[in-house]
């Protein structure tokens, strides 16, 4: 069973992506640097993405090229960006989450165990549904990785990042470079996060009105969106369960029909046949509704939860810079008192102030554009979700009416 799945997902999934541009908001507009992931392979636990770049920029060696990348490479790229001091005033696009096939894999396992209790048809349908689920997870993870790269490419500063270029171009395995980088940055990163958290949460009121507002808003919004994401996930999961139940029912019903076939009152069982067909249609609709809900709603919330975390990180960094600045002030005062090392302290203070100001300025810019981006994305997804729900409900209506019509004309 495990072997069959990789074959399935090896195929080119590009065409399917066009329907999947959910959380992204028209990235990849700038023709000077176009990135996409046209192909991906799933081998056991590892997913290999093919990152394809098309560029008119001179900084690249070739105008068009592709490289294979793994998830860990993306994480490395993200981490290096986070560590880069210059980018402290920018919202670093959130790292794509690790591909998680655990859900469908577990279900597939359970299905295999329960094979003997089901009819052949039921088993085939469940397997089909599971394969679709697997494919959906796969599509999602490819999309998330793609968006990450596209956000970098469409950002004026990030697109010029050296590491980003290496990521896109370097046609050999990045794992060697990755290892070094990780060891170096790993510990530092963690420390920074911890202390920044404390700084922010200490509740010091920010002098700057804008940032104070942002801080309150983002903190509050983050907890709410995290909660909403969790609830949305639960809702989508139970929706999936309902859709799965329809499979069982539809399969058992058609089996029942086969058994009753021998009855002489065949005409009378025509309605059961129609009902069975209806059930089959319904279950497909339910499956679609569940997956659409997942994509448009749950995924949207999930993505922006991560994005807001990235915005919060920016605020942390700014708060850290402020703390540094204040410390440098204190150091300067101390130096002045002791009349020792004054020029160094002054220099330090000046640098801190400069850093802080730069951070604040770019931070403001970034947060404002983030607001706009978020609103647009929500709008797009909510509209699409509503339209899809309407479409599916109409399909259900049509199927039911069709069945009813059949019931009454056939008898």
């Amino acid at each position, binding site marked *: 069973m495990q072997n069959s799945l990789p074959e399935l997902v090896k195929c080119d999934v590009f065409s399917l992506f066009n329907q999947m541009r959910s959380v992204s908001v028209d990235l990849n507009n700038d023709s000077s640097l176009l990135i996409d992931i046209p192909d991906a392979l799933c081998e056991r636990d590892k997913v290999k993405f093919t990152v394809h770049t098309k560029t008119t920029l001179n900084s690249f060696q070739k105008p068009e090229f592709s490289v294979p990348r793994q998830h860990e490479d993306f994480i490395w790229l993200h981490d290096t960006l986070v560590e880069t001091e210059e980018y402290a005033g920018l919202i670093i696009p959130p790292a794509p989450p690790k591909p998680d096939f655990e859900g469908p894999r577990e279900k597939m396992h359970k299905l295999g165990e329960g094979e003997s209790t089901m009819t052949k048809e039921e088993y085939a349908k469940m397997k089909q549904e599971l394969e679709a689920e697997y494919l959906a997870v796969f599509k999602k993870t490819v999309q998330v990785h793609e968006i990450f790269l596209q956000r970098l490419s469409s950002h004026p500063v990030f697109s010029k990042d050296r590491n980003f270029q290496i990521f896109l171009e370097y046609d050999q395995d990045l794992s060697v470079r990755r290892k070094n980088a990780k060891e170096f940055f790993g510990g530092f990163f963690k420390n920074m996060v911890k202390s920044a958290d404390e700084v922010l949460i200490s509740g010091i009121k920010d002098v700057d009105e804008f940032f104070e507002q942002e801080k309150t808003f983002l903190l509050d919004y983050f907890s709410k969106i995290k909660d909403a994401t969790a609830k949305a996930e639960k809702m989508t999961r139970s929706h999936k369960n309902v859709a799965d*139940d329809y499979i069982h029912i539809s399969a058992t019903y058609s089996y029942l029909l086969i058994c009753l076939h021998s009855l002489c009152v065949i005409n009378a069982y025509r309605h059961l046949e129609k009902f069975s067909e209806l059930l089959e249609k319904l279950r497909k609709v339910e499956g679609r509704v569940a997956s659409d809900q997942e994509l448009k709603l749950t995924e949207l919330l999930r993505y922006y939860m991560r994005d807001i975390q990235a915005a919060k990180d920016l605020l942390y960094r700014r708060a850290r810079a402020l703390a540094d600045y204040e410390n440098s002030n204190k150091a300067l005062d101390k130096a002045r008192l002791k009349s020792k090392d004054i020029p160094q302290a002054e220099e330090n203070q000046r640098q801190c102030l400069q850093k802080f100001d730069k951070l604040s300025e770019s931070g403001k810019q970034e947060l404002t554009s983030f607001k706009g981006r978020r609103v647009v994305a929500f709008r797009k997804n909510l509209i699409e979700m509503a339209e899809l729900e*309407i479409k599916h409900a109409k399909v259900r209506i049509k199927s039911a009416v069709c069945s*009813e019509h059949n019931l009454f004309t056939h008898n």
Partner: protein
Amino acid sequence: MSFSSVRNPPPFLDSEDQEPEYDTRELDSDDGEDIFTGSGNKLFAATPPETDPTTDIFSEEGSFTVEKNHPPAKTNGVQSDEELDLFAEATVELTLTTPNSRGRKEIIGPTGPLSTTMSTQNSLHMHNSLNKPLEELEEEESGDTFELNIAVTNPEKMGDGMNAYMTYKVSTQTTLPAFHIKTFSVRRRFSDFLGLYEKLSVKHHLMGCIIPPPPQKSVVGMTKVKVGKEDPSSAEFVEKRRAALERYLQRVVAHPALLQDSDVQEFLEREELPRAVNTQALSGSGFLKMINKASDAVNKMTIKMNESDNWFESKLQEVENEEQLLRRLHASVDSLVNHRKEMCINTAMFAKSVAMLGSSEENSALSRALSQLAEVEDKLEQLHQEQAFSDFFILTELLADYVRLLGAVRGCFEQRMKAWQRWQEAQATLQKKREAEAKLLWANKPDKLQQAKEDLTEWEAKVGQCERDFERISSTLRKEVHRFEKEKCRDFKHHIVKYLESLLRSQHRVVKCWEAFLPEAKAIV
């Protein structure tokens, strides 16, 4: 539930009513209405609309209507109007006391237009059946049919603590002359229903009739109710039981033989019934029943019947298969209902969460849209809840009923086997007696010979009786199975239609919800 059945008329009908039927009496159908459609008799064209008003009245209580097959002559029309009026008051009374009647109307009662289409469809369906080969068993066609509507309503708790019990109001409206009054109602408790079943089993089982089984006992459910917890699950339990009892009674009176049974009539009419104590689980008779069941099971394994008629063997196999499948289907639908309920809870939680999110959103248009989304999800949750309810009542209960009914059918087959066994045993004993007589003849003992001869005649009579019993049970069983299958067909179809209707209704509302949300989403700036 609205399905047709026909009653055997008492002898004192006017002859003109009977005339149209004589031509078509041989034809197989138990829905007299179609005969008339087939013959194109204009007199009966008005029948479907006539049933409408009565159905409407009963939709509140969820009763079923027997299609009136007698010509809508003036006298009959007037009569039905009277019935209408009489029961209209009763209906009002019911509405006032049962707050759930509104909801139930949607779920259980047949709606006016639905039954019209049902009746037209039944006639169309049966039109086809007229073309079926005549080897199919026939049922006695009646001239006039009479109406008998039953409703079980008003569950009330009597008594206190562990001795508490629920009583239900059983209302009957009938034109059958066997009953003294047209409309009446009595209060019955659950054990009364079980008692009725016991009595009917004893009487009719030996004849091969398929007796509808009552709803099952539930110690857990009843204890909750007794203890007096006013939570929704005990209310649901009571409602479930009430609906099940109603269906049970409706099936009982749908059976032509059972309707004429004095026990049934007594059940419907008599004010006070003696307490049926032998239905208690832990009584002496309860234990006796368990022992009997066990011995039956053993017998089943050891009896090897010489089946002269293959029909029975294959039919039994079919019944057993079907029972298995319906059981599986029931389990699946049950799981669907549970998952849908779970989805309701999750949707409600999500709605709250989105509302919170909307309130903390700084962009006002988005904030409005998010709160609107929360409302939509809330409405959807309600719709899901209703859908779950309807899934349950329409499908699950139907399936559970039929699993039990198929069990009852199997029981009849077993009865037939037992009858056969008795016949064989009687034959074996007869053989022994013959041998004994032969021996005596040989040994020449005239006094004992007389005794032996008398024994022989007695046993020959017994064998004859057993054989006749067996034949009778076989032929009744055949007829019963046919009748049962037709009813099952109709029942399933009816429920499927109801399910479709409820699905359509809820989906239209889903579309409305989302369509209302769409402009809000588009207004986000």
